[in-house]
């Protein structure tokens, strides 16, 4: 009996060591593929940066598309944006090649059929996360500045509400994209999103009633006290332009 236990243990250990031995070259191939493609990516990015800088790409973009691209670029430079996109595309390509090599070296295991779609989904999720954060920050500032210039007392509250709405929406999209949570995410998102909207509505409608009414009263007062051009009794108005 002990002989049989010993045999089965040694066969098991042999199988594991064999698997590990066949796994290691694949892992090394994956790392080498990522490293090589990352180096190629760095070279391509540097080359692109040099070419675009000499072609005055940033200045051309600034002239032809006043805000759109430059505002979303790192350090406001479309050249840097293009270079970084090229670099990360190469890194992602390295991962895909590495996983395929890993799959080929592991004698018929189906790791790549499982990992590759997940990897592409992960890249998509990262892109969603970045875009969601940028949009949330952009909208937060837009609403804050717009509300302050409209002299709304609850400007900060409004901008934070908008920011968290977008972040919650982004988080739900990411989880949905990664197929994590399934129906729970949808349900949780519905509850959370609806909750934020309801909270904002209640806060503005009830909790901040006094603030809103004061703000509206001030607006009405401003409108009513706007001087009539025909009335000589009114003080001289301000004309900014």
């Amino acid at each position: 009996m002990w002989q049989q236990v010993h045999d089965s243990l040694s066969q098991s250990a042999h199988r594991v060591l064999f698997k590990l031995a066949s796994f290691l070259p694949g892992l090394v191939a994956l790392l080498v593929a990522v490293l090589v493609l990352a180096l190629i990516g760095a070279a391509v990015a540097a080359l692109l940066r040099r070419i675009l800088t000499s072609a005055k790409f940033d200045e051309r973009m600034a002239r032809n598309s006043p805000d759109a691209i430059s505002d979303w670029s790192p350090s406001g430079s479309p050249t840097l944006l293009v270079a970084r996109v090229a670099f990360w595309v190469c890194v992602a390509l390295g991962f895909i090649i590495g996983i395929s090599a890993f799959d080929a070296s592991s004698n018929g295991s189906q790791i790549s059929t499982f990992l590759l779609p997940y990897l592409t989904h992960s890249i998509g999720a990262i892109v969603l996360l970045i875009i969601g954060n940028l949009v949330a920050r952009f909208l937060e500032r837009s609403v804050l500045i717009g509300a302050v210039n409209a002299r709304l007392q609850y400007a900060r509250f409004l901008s934070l509400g908008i920011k968290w709405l977008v972040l919650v929406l982004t988080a739900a999209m990411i989880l949905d994209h990664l197929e994590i949570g399934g129906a729970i995410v949808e349900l949780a998102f519905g509850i959370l999103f609806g909750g934020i909207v309801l909270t904002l509505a209640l806060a503005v409608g009830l909790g901040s009633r006094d603030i809103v009414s004061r703000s509206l009263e001030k607006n009405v007062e401003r409108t009513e006290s706007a001087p009539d051009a025909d009335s000589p009794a009114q003080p001289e108005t301000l004309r900014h332009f």
Partner: protein
Amino acid sequence: MASTSTNIDASTQPAPAVETGRLLVSLPLLANGELHATLANLAAAFPERTILVATPSSLEGSASPAPDTLHLLAYTPTAASAISWILTAADYVNAFRLAEENQATACLLLGAESQSIAPEALRALAESVLHADADLAIAHYDTGLRELLVNSGILYPVSRALFAARPRFPLAIDLALSLRMAGKLAATAQKFISLNQNDALIWPVAEAASVNYTIAEIEIGPRTMPQPAASDLNSLLAQIAGSLFAEVDAKAAFWQRARGTQPARLFPLSALPAEAADITPMLDAFRLAYTNLHGIWSLVLPPNSLLGLKRLSIMPAESFHMPDNLWARIVYDFILAYRLRTINRGHLLGALTPLYLAWVASHLVLVRSGTAPEKHIQDLAAAFETDKPYLVSRWRWPDRFNP
């Protein structure tokens, strides 16, 4: 000293009787009554000269004929602009094309409400280009104490300090141009037209200064200033300040070399307004912005300026005063942030509005306390000139320590 322009005041020069050049007057779209009043003024201004008057207005159904000395050219603009209260790229392109087609040697561009300009002023503008060797003659308006405040607080001080140019109204809507100046402005405007930006603003003073053309400033007295159709201060300030900041960015190579301060101007001592303006809404807007926009301002402004704003936010209304050098630094830092795209440019210009309102409130408090408004504007412009090295230094080395 790289002085860029020689400023001359042509209003006092006697009008020569001899016709020495062909003048084209470019009018905006005017209503029938306004057009006739303008034509009558032009005829009175140039009784001995035949001039070409180009107008996009329809001349059909006109009850009274045009005076004999005026040769009317009704034209369809090649580039159209939706903005009529200020001169845009389309206006410069149209004027130069007409001047070239009609072999004019000088061009007089008049803005909306031009019927309110006196004939003597029209003559002085044109003569300065035709006879006084100026390339650009720009109108100096006799405005009310609370008018054209954006010009007084931002456009004039920046233009004077950076471009070393004297004109008090750098975005004046009545100009006289030599043919080469008109060509220069049209070439600049054409770049915007080709990008389908017909409403883009062109800065004649900066253009003239950058190529060392002679600039004259002509006192034209009181004039009805056209007002923008939309009264939204935020969007209008963003449009005009954004255009100026872009011009400063485009002309960086020139203004970093241009040095020298402008001589003190002789300004009329204006009578104080009968009633004090209500500054409370402006102060409320500034204080609300201070509590909410502090985070955004801190991305743009150095700690010193933020400290100055903190002091302002707790200052009582009756003694509210924004120091001139603080306002100069704020404007310069916003110009820098515009160039570096520290934050989205729309956000940046939106965040400038409450600060501008604080400056207006401070200006009005100062005027109420007895300071002549024009003296304050000149002192402010001098503060911008004094602080110019700060802008030049940070423009060249933006990552250095911010005081």
